[in-house]
């Protein structure tokens, strides 16, 4: 026997998905243990072992591979529990991390403080020396000044130094020399160089990434080593792979070298799952948890990579899979504002005290309380019945709000429900609008335990035609980890344009990147026939100030003169795809080149064998219960058939309205929402509109 395991540490629960050799997939959950995440990791393995009726050590010994997504780096950053880090910048540019590119704010918002820089001024040093945009040394590096700066930082007790010099991406000589001097002066001190960490020709984003990388390095190293020790103690002899934020896995050694790739890695696994679950081209993935709703998307069946992700007050700086969050979850608290308008979130009751109906001391009305009062959730079958809910407490919590609004408790509950839905629709529109997707033409894959209670109404609001409730919706991210490839990005900056294309230099760069990419896959012990390399460039029209990512292919490993036109054509097409227009007469500029290494894992498709039995006869509901159904301005309870997921075979078809219950989720289907069960147990929904 050998198992494949993915463990995803979320804010509330640590999810564990296990694929048995026959392809059967099971989900296990255990509470997350903040501060000592490795404990929750080990705990959930115990829970899984129990599920298979095995001793923990015996179970762990049979695991081939564990893939792992965590919030360790994200938490360290948000709580600023990071290493004391210094930064060395160019003279004249000491405030790169303070000015940023102008932090975001609301137009009428003035009662706010300007955010402090990630590295304080006292740990920021500048040195004379300058490279220009073409890579020429414009001003020589003042080494005496460098020594002074380094000494100052050492005296101030830094554990790491980030070096971020202008145009190091086209000529790293000054950064490399600074690194040499640091090593001379303090051997062993951790040094991150911006041209290596994030070779992006846009200084704030490159340097903030470098500073973050340097500062979390000790946190990540220590977490990984604790985890490895615990696993070894627990009899683990398989391979441990870690999720990164570019949509794949890395060996632990690689993650220790580039720890910034672990930041916000967990949520990026959800779109990975969607890649495997559907062949649809444009896909929205929504994952509703206890406190947030995370949205991501696939465009042309590819992950969307963005350089604009934010963490706390700063950009993360590196290009990563685009996932956006809005404060809408089961625990989001509803209130009536001073003008009499109902507001839901962003404040959340979290897991503790949680919604009032949890009976853990919470008394504020939350989305989960509303869902309970609307009959969307069966109080006796929450999390498969493991956790009974109290309707009376939900009602008590919602009543004052209903009084304030002057409506019945049910109507107030529906108001909470639909307001939360519209908040989530807003988040979806935010990402689709910016990435050039039309929600109406997109497919939707639901993730997280709560989404299936809400997706039907959201789908009608957005005008979707189809969506999917995956069998493992509640552990969609963990499922994504289970089926992810090894993946890492290797990129370099080289500015050129279609009219004066620097062919030889581009070829040399791509060649180098490809070598690095290959070395990564070899180090991860991926056999050569499983290697894939995807190429892309960042491009823009001349005098445009932002870039888009454009994939391209190479016939025989090298670009030739005739390919330049093709690269430009690909750029025009992508620009039109995202922004609806192309400017054929404008010059296309290329700023950065990327080689993505993909190593397919042997066992990755095992889960596809885990088919459910065919449906025998018409599906039979296990019960009926009253559920609130809203039609336009009118709403009321209707008696809906409730189906048990485990009773539904592949091919089963049910017309809406209906309810499906599973151990880890409840799904509500509105009138016109008809679903069919596929052979993996996913519910494929088609909406009939009159």
């Amino acid at each position, binding site marked *: 026997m050998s198992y494949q395991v993915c463990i995803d540490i979320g804010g509330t629960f640590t999810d564990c998905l296990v694929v048995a050799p026959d392809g059967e997939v099971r989900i296990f959950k255990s509470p997350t243990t903040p501060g000592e995440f490795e404990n929750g990791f080990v705990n959930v393995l115990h829970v899984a072992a129990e599920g298979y009726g095995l001793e923990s050590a015996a179970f762990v010994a049979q695991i081939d591979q564990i893939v792992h997504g965590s919030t360790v780096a994200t938490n360290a950053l948000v709580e600023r529990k990071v290493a004391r880090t210094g930064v060395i910048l160019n*003279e*004249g*540019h*000491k*405030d790169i991390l303070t*000015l*940023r*590119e*102008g*932090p975001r*704010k*609301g*137009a*009428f*918002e*003035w*009662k*706010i403080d*300007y955010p402090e*820089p990630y590295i*304080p*001024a006292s*740990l920021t040093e500048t040195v004379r020396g*300058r490279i*220009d*945009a*073409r890579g020429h040394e414009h001003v020589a590096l003042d080494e005496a000044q460098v020594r002074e700066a380094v000494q100052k930082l050492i005296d*101030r*007790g830094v554990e790491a130094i980030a070096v971020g010099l*202008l145009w190091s*991406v086209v000529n790293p000589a000054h950064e490399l020399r600074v690194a040499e001097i640091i090593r001379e002066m303090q051997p062993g001190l951790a040094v991150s160089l911006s041209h290596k960490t994030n070779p992006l*020709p846009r200084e*704030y984003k490159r340097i903030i990434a470098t500073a973050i990388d340097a500062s979390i390095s000790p946190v990540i190293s220590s977490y990984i080593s604790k985890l490895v020790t615990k696993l070894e103690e627990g009899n683990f002899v398989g391979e441990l792979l870690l999720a990164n934020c570019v949509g794949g896995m890395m060996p632990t050694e690689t993650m220790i070298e580039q720890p910034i790739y672990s930041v916000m890695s967990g949520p990026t696994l959800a779109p990975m799952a969607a890649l495997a679950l559907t062949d649809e081209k444009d896909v929205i993935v929504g994952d509703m948890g206890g406190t947030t709703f995370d949205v991501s998307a696939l465009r042309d069946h590819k992950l969307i990579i963005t350089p604009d992700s934010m963490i706390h007050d700063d950009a993360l700086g590196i290009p990563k899979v685009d996932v956006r969050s809005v404060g809408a979850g089961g625990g989001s608290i509803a209130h*009536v*504002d*001073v*003008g009499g*308008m*109902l507001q839901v979130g962003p404040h959340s009751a979290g897991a503790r005290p949680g919604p009032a109906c949890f009976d853990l001391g919470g008394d504020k009305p939350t989305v989960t309380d509303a869902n309970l009062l609307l009959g969307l959730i069966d109080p006796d079958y929450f999390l498969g019945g493991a956790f009974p809910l109290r309707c009376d407490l939900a009602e008590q919590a919602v009543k004052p709000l209903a009084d*304030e*609004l002057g*409506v019945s408790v049910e*109507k107030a509950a529906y*108001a909470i429900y*639909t*307001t939360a839905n*519209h908040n989530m629709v*807003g988040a979806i*529109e935010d990402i689709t*609008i910016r990435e*050039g997707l039309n929600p109406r033409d997109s497919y939707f894959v639901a993730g997280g335990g709560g989404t299936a209670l809400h997706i039907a109404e959201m789908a009608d609001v957005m005008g979707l035609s189809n969506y999917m409730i995956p069998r493992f919706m509640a552990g969609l991210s963990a499922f994504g980890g289970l089926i992810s490839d090894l993946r890492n990005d290797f990129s370099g900056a080289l500015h050129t344009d279609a009219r004066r294309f620097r062919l030889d230099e581009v070829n040399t760069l791509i060649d180098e990147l490809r070598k690095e990419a290959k070395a990564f896959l070899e180090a991860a012990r991926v056999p050569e026939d499983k290697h894939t390399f995807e190429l892309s460039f960042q491009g823009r029209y001349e*005098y*445009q*100030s932002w870039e888009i990512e454009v994939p391209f292919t190479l016939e025989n490993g090298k670009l030739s003169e005739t390919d330049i036109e093709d690269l430009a054509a690909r750029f025009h097409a992508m620009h039109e795809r995202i*922004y*609806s*227009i192309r*400017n054929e007469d404008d010059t296309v500029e290329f700023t950065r080149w990327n080689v993505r290494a993909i190593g397919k894992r042997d066992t990755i498709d095992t889960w596809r064998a885990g088919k459910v039995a065919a449906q025998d006869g018409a599906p039979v509901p296990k019960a009926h219960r009253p559920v609130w159904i809203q039609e*336009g*301005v009118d709403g009321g309870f209707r008696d809906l058939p409730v189906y048990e997921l485990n009773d539904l075979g592949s091919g089963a078809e049910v017309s809406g309205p209906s309810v499906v219950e599973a151990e880890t989720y409840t799904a509500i289907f509105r009138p016109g929402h008809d679903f069919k069960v596929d052979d993996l147990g996913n519910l494929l929904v088609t909406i009939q509109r009159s």
Partner: protein
Amino acid sequence: MSTTQQTRLDPFLVSVLKSRFESIVREMTLVVTKASRSAVIKNAKDLSCALLTYDHRLVTTEDALPIHVTSMDVATRPITEFFDDVKQGDIFLNNSPFTGGTHHADLIMALPVFFDGEPLFWAVALSHHADTGAPEPSTYLPYAKSIFEEGMHWPCVRVAENYEEKKDILRMGALRNRVPDLWLGDVRAQKGAVLTAEKRIVELCEKYGKDSIKDFVEDWFDYADRRAKAEISKLPKGTYDYQIAHDPVPGVADEGIPINLKIEVDPEAGEITVDVRDNIDCVPGGLNLSENTCLGACRIGVFNNLDASLPHCYGSARRIKVLMREGSAIGKPVYPAGTSVATTNVNDRLTTAGNAIFSKMGKPFGQAEGGPHLPVGMAVISGQDPFKDGQTYVNQIFVGYAGGGANHGHDGWLTYCGPANGGLITLDSVEVDESMYPFIIESREVEADSQGYGEFEGAPGVRGAYYPLNHDMTVMYAADASTFAPRGVLGGLDANPTKSRKKTRKGEVVDLPAFNQELCADGEKMIFNSCGGGGYGNPLDREPTRVAKSVNLGFICADTAREVYKVALSGPDSSGRFDVDADATATLRKTA
């Protein structure tokens, strides 16, 4: 209080329709952004969309620049005055300040939305066009004395009927434009947006019924009204006045342009009256405000002093009465006065006065003055690129701009730029700029101690230097606040003025005029000091920990802490941070 509010609609429907209307405006904005062609619209996002009721009450704006939309009602109202046959499928264009437009470059497109034969809404898309066909190839012409030195005016012109474009009329616009294809493409992008809005509103009417939609609008206005009233009722009753001035502009206003602003606050009624009637007549240049921007600036000043989550629509704006005088530079201009820069310059100053006048109510009200637009760090640079075979480049850079004024509880916003944009303008990346244009940005840093000190401190200004590589570069700027620097309020101190200078080949640093087109020759350097914002409250009342924070941020030096704030610091500690020496500070402040 909310328990007694009776809405026409079920409460859920108010929040649902609010979201849907926001979504419609977001989609409109997307359509304009995606389908437009010119950089000023696509890159700089110089566009705004809005929905108004058919009787010209602003319902929703999203992601909009405040000065574009806060008084959009002024721009649609003349349409129903000029036309008594408005019908489904009509489209109107308006950019004329004499028929409610902002300034000649902002082309406003409006489409009436009908349902069941009844006109319900105006869908409006405003874009700042790259060219207007003015005598000079720019849309900002401070010296243009009248409409005859500006681009083409569209005084509420019907450019489509039954959804069919009137090709002859659009041909007039295209002919009078330096980039006709770009112009027409951008106009069609606006058309795409208003048509999208029409479709979405019709869908909502079908789903919820026309009457529900009409009821929603009234409920929504009532809600905004209640929120605004509640906010205004917290203000002290009284009449307040404030004076400010735009810097001298030679030949247009040699002594500068003074602005008198008066407001009357009636907390019981929950109303504010803004009075700008006591101001000078129109000046012979493009610095006059339009009725639209004057009204907008007056409303924005008030909104900036109320809770930011207040809806900025008719419901809240109706609690702000604005009194303007015909023929005034700060009011309704008289035909054919020049209004080419009506959305920046004097408009910046009027908004700033509106922000600051609330400080006359005492703490915790109002804001100190922030800096205005267009220092050398925001110049339009042009020349022939020696690395691209002499190809011509011309564009505006955003390398270093002004800081914001302080308010009670908060220091000024560092990347402020100017009051018309609400701090939304992106600061350029040095590397992105240097990769586009043949120049070096030698420095761009916070200038410590350039701000106005106070209990709450203005944001410091930003200083820097840039120079052309291997060619001569033309630098155009209009640096207001070179003479009249942003001032502090309630005992807060003034910021340093903006400076525009050049370092010659000999190494001399020479002062340059504030409104200027300068040739920066190869070997010379442009030097800018964009001003910071003014302080709020007496510096001696500043919490010592905030003083230490400013020192630790590098925004002030330790001497300032001791001499201005009378705060003694200890340190630096091992990590280089300063802390407050409480005892020594107490002694210092006792003798201050």
